[in-house]
């Protein structure tokens, strides 16, 4: 048996479609150049030295005590954050799905699940310091403790747990809703207590899902740069150590080797999560609930659970509110009245606030539509088309999900300020070379330090999220709808524009906003690549928080939250008016 003829024919059919071929070629080039190449250069950097293959760089960094400490620090914090986030997320999800709660509590839950989406990554670190630090509102002024130290292990764990548990909550909620209530009713019917049902039925069904949530948070925690930077104090994690190695010690090879170590850890966990646990979760919880669940109304259960969740939710909300209020106090920790806008004045007057907002805003605004469109195209190709390079495109897009921002940042520095595309290594581009006039900095060398590289980093960092939501949106659409359009005589491009895109308009719009919000709040990769001619809000916040100017940092952060919250509101309005019309949604 040989399938060569059909492969040959499929190739011919693909080649008859020049727009498709061009799109695929451009995508492959983009993914190779901006995801694979920077990662490959890290490997070259860390394994190449003195004219050949060497493990010296790894020996050197592994001999550094601070790096060895950073590895254990990172894993310890990640492990605990993973467990705590999963537990808190499960609690919230259980209460929402199983327990009858009032309108107010339901509203609290909504807010809690929304907040991390719209807030910059280090907001919780800021408020943690302002509430519980040495001059903390709660520690010093409420409790009279003068020497509380929030910096370090526990600071990171608490802040990261509060940051990441909403993700677990949303994941768990999806899973719990898929459990068929009759399974639990059958167990109840056979005489199990409510606790018994939870332990013998619900929990075992959820187990792979819990593992999944744990690993997702574990990876997030390990890759997190902003929180350890601000609240870590002397507790260095891998991300911050790499950052300091390259910005402080100018040791690019060492940083590259460290980045490879961090990348390996996240890749292994990502592989376990993606290919083992996700499949298991899907296998145990395939069915849709056949009908509604009888909610628990027993007060001995509802009251304590609801109270616990409400307290936690309120705590999270207070943490977030603390930032805008902090920006209004005259001097945090000393003088609380009268409220003043002087810090906002300083942001715009002394600290080039307007330029920072303009730069962040414009760069994110450019990158968002590129990201949204790219991720929809990738999802379309991955879900709806079959061709040879599909596996490559899918794998590299997924790979980007597992790459921590810091690693990508180091890769970009090494890849575009030096490396393959730098003039010095290619005679034709070097001084006196044939192409020197055209490319004085080498083929791609010119993009280092330009706005283009910042935009590309924004795109690459948001691409996996967009692709994931695009893929799940497209999987819901019957394949034959697109086939029918194709069959009527439309080419691939027309099918994509007139059928696919209109059908996933909601997903596209929300992808647009998510990409924008992720870009404008991004820090981990961008902080390594930004050059002085660009001022970015997140970098400013980080700088002022580092210096201890919390009020200025809060003022910056407040305006950032307003921008992101505003764009999410705008998205909801846009979806209502321009989104997939309600008329046909109900018909599905």
């Amino acid at each position: 048996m040989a399938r060569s003829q059909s492969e040959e024919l499929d190739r011919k059919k693909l080649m008859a479609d020049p727009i498709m071929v061009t799109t695929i070629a451009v995508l492959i080039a983009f993914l190779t150049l901006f995801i694979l190449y920077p990662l490959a250069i890290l490997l070259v950097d860390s394994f190449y030295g003195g004219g050949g293959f060497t493990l010296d760089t790894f020996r050197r960094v592994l001999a550094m005590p601070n790096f060895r400490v950073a590895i254990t620090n990172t894993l310890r914090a990640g492990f605990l954050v993973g467990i705590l986030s999963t537990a808190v997320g499960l609690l919230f999800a259980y209460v929402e799905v199983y327990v009858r709660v009032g309108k107010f509590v339901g509203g609290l839950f909504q807010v809690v699940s929304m907040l991390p989406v719209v807030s910059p990554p280090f907001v919780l670190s800021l408020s943690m310091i302002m509430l519980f630090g040495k001059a903390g509102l709660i520690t010093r002024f409420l409790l009279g403790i003068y020497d509380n130290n929030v910096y370090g292990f526990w600071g990171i764990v608490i802040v990261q747990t509060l940051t990441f548990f909403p993700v677990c909550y949303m994941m768990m909620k999806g899973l719990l809703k898929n459990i068929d209530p009759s399974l639990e009713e059958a167990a109840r019917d056979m005489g199990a207590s409510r606790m018994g049902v939870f332990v013998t039925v619900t929990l075992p069904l959820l187990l792979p899902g819990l593992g999944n949530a744990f690993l997702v948070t574990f990876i997030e925690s390990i890759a997190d740069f902003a929180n350890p930077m601000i609240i870590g104090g002397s507790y260095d994690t891998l991300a911050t150590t790499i950052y300091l190695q390259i910005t402080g010690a100018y040791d690019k090879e060492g940083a590259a080797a460290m980045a490879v170590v961090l990348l390996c850890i996240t890749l292994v966990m990502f592989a376990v999560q993606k290919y083992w646990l996700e499949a298991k979760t899907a296998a145990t919880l395939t069915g849709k609930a056949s009908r509604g669940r009888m909610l628990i109304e027993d007060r001995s259960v509802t009251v304590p659970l609801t109270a616990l969740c409400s307290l936690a939710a309120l705590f999270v909300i207070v943490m977030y509110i603390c930032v805008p209020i902090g920006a209004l106090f005259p001097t945090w920790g000393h003088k609380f009245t009268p409220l003043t806008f002087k810090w906002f004045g300083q942001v715009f007057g002394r600290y080039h606030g307007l330029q920072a907002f303009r730069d962040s805003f414009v760069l994110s605004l450019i990158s968002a539509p590129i990201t949204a469109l790219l991720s929809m195209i990738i999802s379309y190709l991955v879900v709806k088309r079959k061709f040879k390079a599909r596996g490559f495109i899918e794998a590299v897009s997924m790979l980007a999900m597992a790459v921590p921002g810091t690693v990508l940042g180091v890769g970009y520095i090494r890849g575009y300020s030096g490396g393959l595309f730098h003039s010095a290594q290619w005679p034709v581009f070097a001084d006196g070379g044939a192409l020197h006039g055209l490319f004085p900095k080498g083929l791609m060398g010119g993009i280092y330090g330009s706005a283009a590289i910042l935009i590309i980093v924004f795109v690459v960092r948001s691409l996996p999220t967009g692709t994931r939501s695009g893929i799940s949106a497209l999987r819901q659409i019957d394949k034959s709808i697109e086939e029918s359009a194709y069959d009527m005589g439309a080419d691939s491009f027309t099918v994509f524009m007139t059928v696919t895109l209109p059908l996933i308009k909601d997903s596209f719009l929300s992808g647009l906003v998510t990409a924008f919000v992720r870009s404008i709040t991004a820090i981990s990769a961008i902080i390594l690549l930004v050059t002085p001619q660009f001022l970015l809000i997140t970098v400013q916040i980080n700088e002022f928080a580092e210096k201890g100017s919390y009020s200025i940092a809060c003022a910056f952060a407040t305006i950032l939250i307003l921008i992101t919250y505003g764009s999410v509101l705008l998205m909801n309005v846009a979806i209502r008016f321009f989104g997939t019309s309600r008329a046909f949604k109900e018909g599905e």
Partner: protein
Amino acid sequence: MAKEKKGVRLDHISKIYRDPKTGKEFYAVHDTTLEIAPGAFVTLLGPSGCGKTTTLRMIAGFESPDEGEIYLGGEPINALTPNKRDTAMVFQSYALLPHYNIFDNVAYGLKLRKMDKETIRKKVLDILALVGLEGMEGRMTNQLSDGQQQRVALARALVIEPGVLLFDEPLSNLDAKLRVTMRTEIRRIQQEAGITAVYVTHDQSEAMALSDEIIIMEKGVVSQIGSPQEVYYRPKNEFVADFIGDANFLRGKFVRRDGQNAVVNVNGVEVLASGAENAAAGAETVIVLRPETSVLSDEGYFPVKVIVSSFMGAYQLYHVMLGDNKLIIHEYAPQGKKIYAMGETAYLRFAPENAHCI
């Protein structure tokens, strides 16, 4: 729809798939050669997994054959993409574009052909009238019943005047009554439009009611091609006999010819049957008996024991045992006829033309 009707020819077509679980390759369609005449209504019939839908999708261009060549109106079309082929498909799930109204759904293919607005409008309204959807053009697809959605899908395929119309189990999502109405409609519209149609179904009564010719497939191979009467009365093998309608099988040995008839020895009794024109004396043969043409009476070829006897209204249903071979017999219009009760012994009779040897 004055366009030229096109025939379809499949020349030694095979399609190989890989089983995702075992990784083994297998033939979904194996060495299939077919000739579909212009203007004919041809059905691909078979159980699920027999390769009928794969064959249809190869004609449409969604799948590429691994061996052989497909011709449409005499032109080889293997390398053409679906949008370049002169075919139009009616999908099982209707596959209407949910963000367009009925008019725009039907006009979609015409707009791609860059026709002017007035022509498009006229063609769309004409075709909607043909399928019985006048005045519905402004509705959204989810405001239609299943049957109406199916009509839109049909109109959308017809309006671009394809050389061949392809149907992929179009009625299987409809309820039983509607299915019967719609199949009459489909046949009427196909005749009025005078278009070549290839229709995939696993429902044998649908195939019988619609087709000029039925192609029965089993495990990727064509079992028999013939008119509905041919495949029903003169099935080529037990699979076809069993798949089309109900069938009883009597195993025996061919003895000799007797005029038009064949004499077959079944359980030591010589019976008269039809077919087996080229059989040699002593050859193993199987006689196919349809339940409605076999008769129980007080005399006949064999004594049989009645194990079930139920009144079904239109007919009396019998299950009888001939040795350890269970036969099913339908005695139509039973009123006034002798009814055998459970446990009684009766004799089986049949006319030679109703006993086909395979």
